[in-house]
């Protein structure tokens, strides 16, 4: 046997291999961490809201407009979140009216019509679009879109439902594009070829073959867009005007030019002023619970829609 000259690399390898049981424990623990994090989020948010939960008047919470956490002398504080739910609902609806057609159109263009460099470029640009932070969108709404809306519609203040919806639409759209594109790409090429052989045009393939085949994925994309819109915080805070208004007539398009206030914006703007441990503070965590449950339901449902209950990718 030759003289032992164990290299440094050898020592490192020995150490790393010897540590395998420990590393395996770390890997398993990390793997399960996602569950722990989600559980922790539920636990700590419930912990802060807990003392008030038995006293919450859910009827008032969901169906009345008066959110008066700091009432005048001698009055009871009231927590009616209907106007904020309206705000969240309105921003979501109007942003989806913009985002869904644009997002699906762009996804179809990128996946089915564009080729080569054009396709690559669009994909990169959409990726960059997705990277723009919420606060920058808020800045765009407040500083750039605000004066534009003022002059176009002749209103004194340009931060309103319209502004907020445009901003949220642009924030939700990259998600819609990328999930829809995945769904379209998951349709086997043989479907396209078969339809092409029957003399279908590309557009006919899109709405006769791809839409039905990818409908689950496209639906999930729209749901995740809704989830994003509901949960969006900084941008809506800055771009919607953050004022509680419930319109009298929902059919009047002028509601677009009213201020609104969403659930998320309420938490951001009121948490610093609420007394820690007080009812107001805890009610903000109750709103957090509503948002949390909503987002988990949306995400789990869309995940099941795309991957099926067992998690196989086949019926995407």
């Amino acid at each position, binding site marked *: 046997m030759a003289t032992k000259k164990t290299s440094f690399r050898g020592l490192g390898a020995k150490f790393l291999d010897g540590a395998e049981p420990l590393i395996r424990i770390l890997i398993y623990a990390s793997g399960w961490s996602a569950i722990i994090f989600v559980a922790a989020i539920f636990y700590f948010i419930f912990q802060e809201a807990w003392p008030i939960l038995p006293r919450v008047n859910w009827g008032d919470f969901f169906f009345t407009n008066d959110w008066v956490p700091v009432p005048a002398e001698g009055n009871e504080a009231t927590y009616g979140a209907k106007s904020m739910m309206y705000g969240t609902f309105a921003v979501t609806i109007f942003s989806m009216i913009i985002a869904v057609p644009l997002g699906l159109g762009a996804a179809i263009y990128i996946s089915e019509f564009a080729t080569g460099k054009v396709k690559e470029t669009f994909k990169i640009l959409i990726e960059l679009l997705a990277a723009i*932070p919420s606060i920058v969108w808020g800045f765009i709404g407040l500083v750039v879109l605000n004066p534009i809306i003022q002059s176009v519609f002749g209103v004194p203040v340009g931060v309103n439902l319209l502004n907020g919806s445009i901003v949220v639409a642009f924030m939700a759209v990259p998600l819609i594009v990328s999930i829809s594109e995945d769904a379209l790409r998951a349709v086997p090429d043989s479907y396209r070829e078969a339809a092409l052989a029957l003399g279908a045009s590309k557009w006919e393939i899109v709405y006769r073959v791809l839409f039905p085949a990818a409908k689950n994925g496209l639906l999930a994309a729209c749901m995740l867009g809704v989830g994003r819109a509901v949960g969006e915080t900084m941008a809506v805070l800055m771009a919607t005007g953050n004022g509680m208004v419930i319109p009298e007539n929902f059919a009047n398009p002028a509601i677009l030019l009213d201020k609104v206030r969403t659930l998320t914006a309420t938490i951001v703007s009121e948490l610093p002023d609420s007394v820690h441990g007080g009812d107001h503070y805890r009610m903000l965590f109750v709103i957090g619970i509503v948002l949390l449950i909503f987002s988990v339901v949306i995400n789990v449902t869309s995940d099941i829609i795309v991957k099926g209950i067992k998690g196989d990718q086949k019926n995407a």
Partner: protein
Amino acid sequence: MERRKVLVEGIAKKVMLVAALCLIVPVLAIIAYIFYKASPVLGLDYLWGVPEGGGTGGGIWPPLIGTFFLVLVSLCICAPIGIMAGIYLNEYAPDNWFTRIINMAVTSLAGVPSIVHALFGVGAFVLTFGMGESLLAASCTIAVMTIPVLITSTREALSAVPMAFRQACWNMGATKWQTIRTIVLPNSISGILTGVILEVSRAAGETAPILFTGAAASIPFMADSLGDKLMPYFLGDKFMALSYHLKVVADKLNDVPEAMKYGTAAVLIGLIFILNSFSIVLRMYLRSRKKW
């Protein structure tokens, strides 16, 4: 094909193209406009300077370095966990309902609104774990929020390594970990790095989660020595961050000169675009030099 068909096809294609362009062009225009408006202040003095008069003058060094530390600390927390979780899901996880639940937890975690993460950060790190409003509490909150980015991209990078390599190693008696260490990780490291960069870019832009967990609108900044300037915040301190600073100057509608506002936005956008471009270039480079 009949003429009507050709016509419809042409129109459909144009409509789709317009949809795609509607997303891209206005945003590019707005970003160009932001940079144009910011151009009077953009420069080393602005990046290196300290805010004066509550953000009405001076530069943005304190929030810039604050964001750097926020990102660094959060990365130190979530990189090991996220990468190992990705390894678990791709290499170790059995194909059963428990793994399915983990996957659902990852998607849920990615979908939880940022303000809910903020509330979680307040309840868990600031109050229960006694960190107070601090750099550490904010970093922990950001780490939990961005960890799905790392898990997903690590898993993707690992799954790009062909199964046959692993089988060859196992046939030679290499253990699972030896196989991962010697073959799987060396061949997916750039993909994992892409995920790390994306995490950094997400962390740098987030605002809501740090609002109540440690970010401050303004902190008296000692810039006497270079050391103070490079290392102004410790883990237990409150800190300034670029994203929050942007909110602060944007809200002061009239006091802050326009270029100062646009400057902060431009630096934040620039930072994030540079990071993302870096990850895109890395990915392309990767695709161009496959080892198999």
